[in-house]
């Protein structure tokens, strides 16, 4: 770009107009039936069609102007883009009688195109300067930075997670934090199979279910306590992982995904239909809550089952929050254990072999790696973590039924792993907060929240196709004298040219 010439408005206008009109047309085609036609129960319980031209029109207008603003900005007229953005925001806020959701979308869209324009205004293209970094490149830098600073970020994150119940000491915040933490743990567990070993597992919920039902059933039939059941649930889930592992050993790619999907459904259907043993669709109710490490119970009475209550033991005022906070810390500890184990394994030959399997399984075999064993190991370890999470889920809810273990759960956990960036531990945290936290925060928007959620997923995957924090830091380097995780320590420092 030796001589950047400012294009003339006459050239740009038809192009921008065409682009905006085309985008509007596409929107019209998409929304005409999906938004425009609405079935309502009419007289004599018959369905009648209702036409919502207004909604379609609003969508088309919004897309038309939004696209126009983006196009102007791109063609070198960011001021026009900014103007249209401001108009969209103002119009959405001021036009009387707009539904709330349209208002929110309008303001959001206007803000996005406006910010895009301001960005360009602030950094005009100049021939003597390298072109500004695209947002994707910026995000690459962010991802690399996050991975490099993972220790610091981890410490700050854990400190925040520990302080959280005291910063927001109310029931709904702690419940939400516990939920998010459960999914972080599931995400970290699944990350071993999907992110590291590169095997697309669509049935992870099966192990979650095995863990939950292990605890539920052992407690129901044998009156086992949570602290006894937690390791047992992990073992049983690991065993389930091993059983699933064998038939899928020879499979790859799509076939592998389908079999795991089937396995997830089989577990659920068995739980649903084996009524005499599992309670069938009614599930298992009144699953016992965990005690405080077998020392104290969380009851309002000063004593129960021969154990003192938590508040009398520690001389506190009774509040039901104690149990919730305890549960939160429990899942926090479980999740951190999963994380620590994953990070450790990653540096061992086993973890490396998983990565090799992901990258090229033929080469992997020709290096003397036993594919069968490492696949089974990935499956078993990941299933065990799922089982721990499942038994936690059972004790937290106090009630489980097959309904909690549908395919959508597997899909959500998989989405967390993929969205975060395959194999990235920090990415899982970020994605879990986004995927679980966001819909909870936008609950007021009712059914539209899923729309926004879907849009956000699409945007992220277009913008960062390999996940938010996809960046792999090498585990060994020659320079610096100290190698982490290498087969032998002590390498003489070498000069390695910067990449």
């Amino acid at each position, binding site marked *: 770009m030796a001589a950047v010439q400012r294009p003339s408005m006459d050239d740009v206008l038809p192009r921008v107009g065409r682009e905006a009109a085309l985008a509007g047309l596409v929107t019209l085609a998409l929304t005409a039936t999906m938004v425009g036609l609405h079935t309502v129960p009419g007289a004599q319980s018959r369905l009648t069609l209702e036409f919502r031209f207004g909604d379609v029109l609003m969508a088309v207008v919004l897309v038309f102007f939004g696209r126009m603003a983006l196009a102007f900005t791109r063609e070198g007229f960011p001021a026009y883009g900014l103007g249209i953005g401001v108009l969209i925001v103002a119009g959405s806020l001021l036009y009387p009688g707009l539904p709330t959701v349209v208002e929110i979308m309008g303001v959001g869209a206007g803000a996005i195109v406006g910010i895009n324009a301001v960005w360009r205004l602030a950094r005009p293209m100049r021939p003597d300067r390298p072109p500004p970094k695209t947002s994707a490149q910026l995000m690459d830098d962010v991802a690399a930075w996050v991975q490099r600073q993972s220790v610091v970020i981890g410490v700050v994150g854990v400190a925040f997670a520990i302080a959280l119940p005291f910063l927001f000491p109310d029931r709904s915040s702690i419940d939400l934090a516990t939920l998010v933490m459960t999914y972080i743990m599931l995400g970290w567990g699944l990350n071993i199979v999907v992110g590291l070993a590169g095997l697309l597992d669509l049935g992870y919920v099966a192990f979650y279910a095995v863990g939950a039902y292990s605890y539920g059933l052992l407690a129901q039939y044998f009156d086992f306590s949570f602290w006894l059941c937690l390791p047992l649930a992990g073992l049983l889930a690991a065993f389930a992982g091993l059983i699933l592992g064998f038939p899928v050993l020879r499979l790859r790619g799509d076939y592998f995904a389908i079999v795991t999907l089937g396995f997830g459904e089989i577990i659920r259907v068995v739980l649903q239909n084996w009524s005499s043993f599992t309670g069938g669709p009614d599930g298992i109710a009144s699953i016992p809550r965990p005690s405080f490490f077998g020392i104290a119970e969380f009851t309002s009475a000063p004593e129960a089952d021969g154990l003192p209550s938590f508040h009398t033991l520690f001389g506190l005022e009774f509040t039901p929050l104690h149990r919730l906070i305890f549960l939160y810390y429990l899942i926090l500890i479980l999740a951190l254990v999963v994380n620590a184990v994953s990070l450790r394994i990653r540096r061992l030959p086993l973890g490396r072999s998983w990565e090799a399997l992901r990258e090229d399984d033929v080469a992997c075999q020709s290096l003397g790696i036993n594919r069968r064993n490492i696949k089974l190991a990935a499956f078993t370890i990941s299933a065990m973590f799922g089982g721990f999470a499942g038994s936690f889920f059972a004790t937290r809810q106090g009630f489980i039924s097959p309904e909690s273990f549908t395919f959508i759960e597997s899909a959500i956990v998989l989405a967390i792993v993929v969205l975060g960036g395959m194999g990235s531990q920090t990415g899982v945290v970020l994605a879990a907060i986004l995927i679980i936290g966001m819909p909870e925060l936008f609950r007021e928007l009712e059914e539209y929240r899923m729309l926004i959620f879907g849009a956000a997923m699409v945007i992220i995957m277009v913008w960062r196709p390999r996940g938010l924090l996809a960046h792999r830091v090498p585990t060994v380097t020659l320079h610096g004298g100290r190698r982490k995780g290498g087969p*032998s320590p002590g390498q003489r420092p070498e000069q390695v040219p910067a990449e």
Partner: protein
Amino acid sequence: MILTVDNVHTFYGAIEALRGVSLEVDEGEIVTLIGANGAGKSTLLMTICGNPQARSGQIVFDGETITRTPTFQIVRKGIAQSPEGRRIFPRMTVLENLQMGALTSDPAHFDGDLERIFALFPRLRERSGQRGGTLSGGEQQMLAIGRAMMSRPRLLLLDEPSLGLAPMIVKQIFEVIEDINREQGVTVFLVEQNAFHALRLATRGYVMVNGEITLTGTGAELLSNEEVRAAYLEGGH
């Protein structure tokens, strides 16, 4: 004999890719197998490594029958393969790729082995922190050979190391192969389409046509053989 392949038949489904192949590799030799595209050269290498396994016949390595041994154990016995198309791990760094090769060998040898590989391929030292996928074709081939050498093999199987490389680089690669054989005492079994370079290097050679061995002789004999010249040398050079 370090490797004996005796009347081996290999099938892909109903298709017979190897029709009774027999050959021998002696300790310390460089043996070359040449042949046209689709003759079954790569299939033979893969069969030696046990993937796919031979349907009938026998493969003996160092006095031990390995026809039915699983691939990963064959590698542990001392056969390393640099597979067709290099197949390095693109997202791992050069150093990590080399480490993967050392997975089956004693960690105590690691530093020394690494130095040996870097001495053979100084380029790999320069690139040690770089991802495998960002290397040039020639460097990737060096990495594939280096990775195979990290398992301290007694027999090194090389599948078309010259594939898609510039003539200059091909020459370098073949010099290193000679080095590996002469200096480090590793027996080399080389599969090549680039018959000229391969035969010049080889102690002995075999020619494969349609899954069968049709000719054998020393490298020099095959180089001067009329049929070989007509089929594999004249057109290409």
